[in-house]
């Protein structure tokens, strides 16, 4: 009964699951290297991630799961919640061992929790689609900063690529310091070494901002203020739908 420690990645986690099966280990807990707290008397194992082993587990899992739930383990993993690994481990174990599908057994705490966590992560993905606000630079690039709670930027690529097919854009995750860049042909992951924007609210420096950009932002703020019906004021509802943590990136909400 050891503590299993893996290298923060999903691949590492899958390798750990593989090793549990291969070496017939029942883990006490599966921990990220980053979050692991030393223990004195228990056994611990460091698992280096192995692409092949991870791949085998992932393929087997996808074969067992309904197409609807194909991404469920990965999405739940992205939440980085405490104890998510053991929940996933127990869930995968049940999936592998039962002869019928157990994905809708919501009487089981693990299945229900994973479903709920998956929903949460999906909601965060949706929020990126909602609250990305592009600013146009002088060279025609549309840039948007964003700070999602979970690392879900990759899930939004398809949407933005389909929608803004005729404009180059860059969506940058400030918290995790990487972004997705689209150059009219394909998308790629980029890391900016020299940042042309304010690190706090993602505002592009005025030297490289296109002239009409501020006009549009003022127009939008103008529209935002005038479409509101004052007699029906309901700030709580507003915050519920549009969490305050996104406000600093929104031209209609950011302080001028």
């Amino acid at each position: 009964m050891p503590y299993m420690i893996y290298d923060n990645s999903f691949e590492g986690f899958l390798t750990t699951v593989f090793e549990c099966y291969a070496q017939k280990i029942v883990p006490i807990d599966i921990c990220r290297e980053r979050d692991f707290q030393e223990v004195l008397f228990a056994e611990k194992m460091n698992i280096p991630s192995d692409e092949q082993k991870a791949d085998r587990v992932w393929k087997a899992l996808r074969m067992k799961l309904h197409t609807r739930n194909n991404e469920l383990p990965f999405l739940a993993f992205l939440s980085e919640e405490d104890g998510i690994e053991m929940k996933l481990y127990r869930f995968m174990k049940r999936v592998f061992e039962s002869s019928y599908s157990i994905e809708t057994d919501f009487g089981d705490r693990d299945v229900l929790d994973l479903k709920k966590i998956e929903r949460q992560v999906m909601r965060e993905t949706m929020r990126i689609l909602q609250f990305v606000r592009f600013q146009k630079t002088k060279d025609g690039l549309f840039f948007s900063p964003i700070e999602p709670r979970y690392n879900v930027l990759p899930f939004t690529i398809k949407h933005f690529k389909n929608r803004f097919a005729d404009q180059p854009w860059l969506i940058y995750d400030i918290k995790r310091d990487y972004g997705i860049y689209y150059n009219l042909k394909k998308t790629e992951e980029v890391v900016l070494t020299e940042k042309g924007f304010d690190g706090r609210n993602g505002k592009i420096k005025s030297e490289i901002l296109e002239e009409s950009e501020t006009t549009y932002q003022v127009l939008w703020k103008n529209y935002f203020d005038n479409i509101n019906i004052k007699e029906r004021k309901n700030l709580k509802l507003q915050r519920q739908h549009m969490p305050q943590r996104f406000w600093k990136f929104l031209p209609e909400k950011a302080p001028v």
Partner: protein
Amino acid sequence: MNEKVQEKLKILADAAKYDVSCASSGNNRSNVNGGIGNAVACGICHSFTDDGRCISLLKILMTNHCIYDCAYCINRKSNDRPRATFTVQEIVDLTIGFYRRNYIEGLFLSSGVIKNPDYTMERLMLVTKKLRKEKRYNGYIHLKAIPGASPELIRAAGLYADRLSVNIEIPTEQQLKHLAPEKDYKGVIQPMNQIAEGIQVYKEERKKFRRTPVFTPAGQSTQLIVGASPESDRQILLLSSNFYHEQQLKRVYFSGYLPVNDYDKRLPALKAPPLVRENRLYQSDWLMRFYHYRADEILTPEQPFLDLDIDPKLAYAIRNLHLFPVDINKADYEMILRVPGIGVQSAKMIVDARRFRKLNTYHLKKIGVVLKRAQYFITANELPSALRHWEPERLRSHIIYESHTKNRKPGDTQLSLFAFTPPHQTPALQVHYKN
């Protein structure tokens, strides 16, 4: 883009805000030949105003000049207000500019009637045509069909727009005559029928020919003003149920009447918009669309108005106590859906989960059922806690009382003049212990 456009946008957004509809859902238009934009079937809300309503579309009027003088409308001819008109090019530039910055999901274009309905409709149609053909724009477009416009123009608009809507505003013909003498009921219903028919024809032809031009793929919607005229909730619900079945409408919106023209003696004097009533109507609308209720189940002829203290689903359950309690582990989906406190999502999860084990209230709570309301109406594989013989009237007041105590503060003891008195509590069972 200059000062003039800023000013116009201010006036015309302000004039359009009383249109409730802002949905961008119902269609999966894809981006063709590297143009700009697409539509997502679930719809995306991009911002939320201080009143908590979503901004999904750029909702503006083309002009707020109008030849009509409808009593309930802020843009009526006799009102002294700043007026403005957008040119086609201005609307197109605004839409594309906002869309490229991901501010909006598409365009919602309505208009006051200038010159005549045909002239107005043609201008609206031109905007959509320009967006689709010149700008290769594939985002969402919601267009108002102007009552009285010629069928050819409405047909042409439907070929470019995703959704068309005709606002009926006042639920009955008689009241419409009273409040908007220039409009007639037939003029409103006729385009609605035409659009419904057009969609039907498209669906049939699509089965035979793949290249049939798409006609209003996201369907049509309409809007009713609540509280401006004396119609009962039952009349309103029956009417909207009719729209859903006869004209295959996607949505019927309700707009609580805001006293915008308080000088007009034909309208009721209200201090605040009837927000609770509007909310109850929307809840009933949801019951019809997602919970398989019929309009005449929600409101009976004896009870023409919705109960403002409790939601319509709870009211239905209390009126029909003979249908309950429902056994969570055995009842069919339809019946589980009728339990107050269980929504569509929970009901589906219950039906899925009970194949594996018998569910009890602990499971239900974890799944997300609101037991506070559901407990009076279910049995779940254990001894019932709150189930006993309830008189409908007493159960109603009991539930209201319970829901109030949640928000009561410790020092909040002063009685108000019309305060609700808590129902009589049955004394706890006497238990005798043997020494």
